């Protein structure tokens, strides 16, 4: 059976069409989920796409966090079972929801930055990165005004120690992210937040590469192998 991957549209979501396209190109069925509807329609995985949910008012992701659909996403994600990917604004929503540690703040340059960015995959042990190998480098699009990942040192140490950094920027982070972190995961590896946009690197015609497709094929592979007990990452 074809996996069904939900893509949530919040008011102000922009890259939802792109996330749905990437899901389709990876061979799954994209399912449109609406922010105001507390129903996950039985999907196998969820993508929170990029954009400016609620206009990014207050703080990016702060208002979206309280939407009805997130009431369903949060417990399912916490349980370790539902794979959830947050891209850019989706990553911000996951941090605001405390599904992921840290916070995303204004770029150090104080300007929006759109660039083709090299990132290095740091762990292939998540639901969304198993198609890659650790240390593999990708070229994908980074486009954001508030992509500067911050957390206190203890949290950063723990993330690195437990293999919960998913990707690093190669070279200096263009947004000032601490320790060049481009993406992180939760303790189960089912929830991943990425600041750059893999869904914009899935077609040779429109993307800087097709390196991003692996994120979406990863989750299909992950779903194929389920059910597996969700073991916290970093457990020996």
């Amino acid at each position, binding site marked *: 059976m074809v996996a069904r991957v939900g893509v949530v549209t919040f*008011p*102000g979501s*922009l*890259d939802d*069409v*792109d996330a749905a*396209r990437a899901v389709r190109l990876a061979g799954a069925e994209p399912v449109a989920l609406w922010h*105001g509807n507390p129903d996950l329609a039985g999907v196998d995985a969820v993508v929170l796409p*990029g*954009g*400016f949910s*609620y*206009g*990014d*008012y207050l703080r990016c992701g702060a208002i979206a966090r309280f939407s009805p659909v997130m009431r369903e996403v949060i417990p399912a994600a916490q349980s370790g079972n539902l794979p959830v990917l947050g891209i850019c604004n989706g990553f911000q929503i996951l941090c605001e929801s405390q599904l992921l540690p840290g916070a995303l703040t204004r770029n150090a340059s104080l*300007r*929006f*930055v*759109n*660039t083709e960015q090299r990132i290095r995959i740091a762990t292939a042990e998540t639901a969304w990165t198993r198609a890659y190998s650790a240390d593999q480098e990708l070229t994908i*699009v980074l*486009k954001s*005004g508030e992509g500067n990942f911050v957390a206190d040192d203890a949290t950063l140490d723990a993330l690195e120690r437990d293999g919960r950094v998913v990707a690093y920027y190669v070279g200096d982070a263009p947004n000032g992210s601490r320790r060049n972190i481009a993406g992180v995961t939760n303790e189960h590896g089912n929830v991943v937040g990425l600041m750059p*946009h893999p*869904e*914009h690197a899935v*077609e040779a*015609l*429109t*993307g800087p590469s097709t390196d991003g497709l692996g994120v979406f094929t990863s989750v299909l592979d992950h779903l194929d192998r389920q059910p597996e007990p969700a073991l916290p990452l970093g457990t020996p």
Partner: protein
Amino acid sequence: MPEVPLIDTVATAEGSPDTPQPYAELGMADDEYARVRDILGRRPTAAELAIYSVMWSEHCSYKSSRAHLRQFGDKAPHTDALLVGMGENAGVVDVGDGHAVTFKIESHNHPSYVEPHQGAATGVGGIVRDILTMGARPVAVLDALRFGPADAVDTARVLPGVVSGISFYGNCLGLPNIGGELGFDPGYAGNPLVNALCVGVLRHEDIKLAQAAGPGNLVVLFGAPTGPDGIGGASVLASATFEDESQAKRPSVQVGDPFLEKLLVECSLELFANDLVEGIQDLGAAGVSCATTELAAGGTGGMRISLDKVPLRDHRLTPEEILMSESQERMMAVVTPQKLDRFAAICDKWGVEATVIGEVTDVSSEEHERGGRLVMTWQGQTIVDLPPRTAADEGPVYQRPYARPATQDGLQRDSATHLERPGPGELREQLLRVLGSPGVCDPRWVTQQYDSHVRGNTVLATPHDGGVLRVSEDSARGIALAVDGNGRFSRLDPYAGAQLALAEAYRNVASTGARPLAVTDCLNFGSPEDSGVMWQFAETARGLADACQRLGTPVTGGNVSFYNQTGDSAIHPTPVVGVLGVIDDVHTRLASAFPTSPDQARIYLLGT
């Protein structure tokens, strides 16, 4: 208005013909005011004066440019591709496979000087609503910018603000920015140019027009509530030289909310898809005045509006202020009563406020003769009763005097053939100076702030010659766009300068592999009351119309921005030309870069 009572109704106007009215302060000439009195057979009410003053302003009526712009129609080359030509909110071009494209460029120069961020942001918002109004999904923007010298103090205020405004609004709307222009010249120091182009895609059968058809149909205002934004902006701010007074006029800037605009776009597209609107108009400059008179003029000619029903953000607004407010993110639709519930439900889904403020009415043949009948009430009293076509379509047309300025000879004397050739050392230094000049060097500081990828259909964007988009995923077809202009060329020879602007945009489109099809233009000039400026304008229009005829690409729409000057000195005449092309198989597009495997590559120089 000392003598005018609190509510200036039609009845009071009839009873007080001699009340002095501030028409001059609203930018109206004596003869224009006299004509309004003539049309109405009495003095206008304050609200009617507000409507005529904005509708007959240079900005809305094109009264100085219209006589020259006619050439774009008269000389338009025949093409089967044109589905909607000049005169609507934007032209529509057939690109094959049942797909059509609509595109238009517009200026927001003055507001962007007063408040760079909001001015530029709302410029993007306005042009996007124009495209949406045609029934199209907006799919990309381009921007052409001119500033004073890069090292001038004020440029450090204006440039970052303008760029952050375009970036903020366009990015937040989810529209990729696929190209543009950036230029610097001392002439723009007190008068930057901010021209934004938006392109939209639709199916042939989805074209919408601005008309209020069907008596009994309802007039619905939807989007943002009305506030005191840009009051007087359309007639005062946007069409008068501002200099030092800008301080005083500052509070009338418009403030944009791109988030609401995004909701308005999605909401409108869903309304269109469900066939719930009979006619639609966006609210830009001149807000409710413009939308009501134009919708009525385009339809039966009849409309009744209860102005009290307009949702307000500030309850102190007077009816005249409501009529002139330029609050952003508003649209007006004509809806049949049977479809109102479904209309409201979709607005509700997107969190967009929608309010019925009136209805389309029938007109008698006598009223039809006069230009229709638009009636507005306020607290139950009639404050407007005018023939809408006289406001929307029958504004004044001026034959402004124009003459080639004597200084032109001096400018042209130093032609390239007379100038001394530089020696080798000098040439090197000159080349480096050109390459290092802010208008030529890498614009990345600007363009990196723009999202070029969102929606996933961008095939080429900055730094390529033209932007290229895939029209839809189920077709191989693509469209290409470029905007170009060069005020210095135009200053030397406005006729040739306009043609060069077109030729450059045309080449930029062609060099992506696309076939140029149609043109939009934004003509930025000084005061039309100056005969030398008017000559530049006339020559530009003639040059562009002739070139479009020769190249077989009609002008489908555009914008004129006059009064771009600081004191007595006008900016260089600056036509900015946008060209749209189509490419049958977007996979064959050409990038402006050498291939990464250079073994097979040859370099050819084409042309003279």
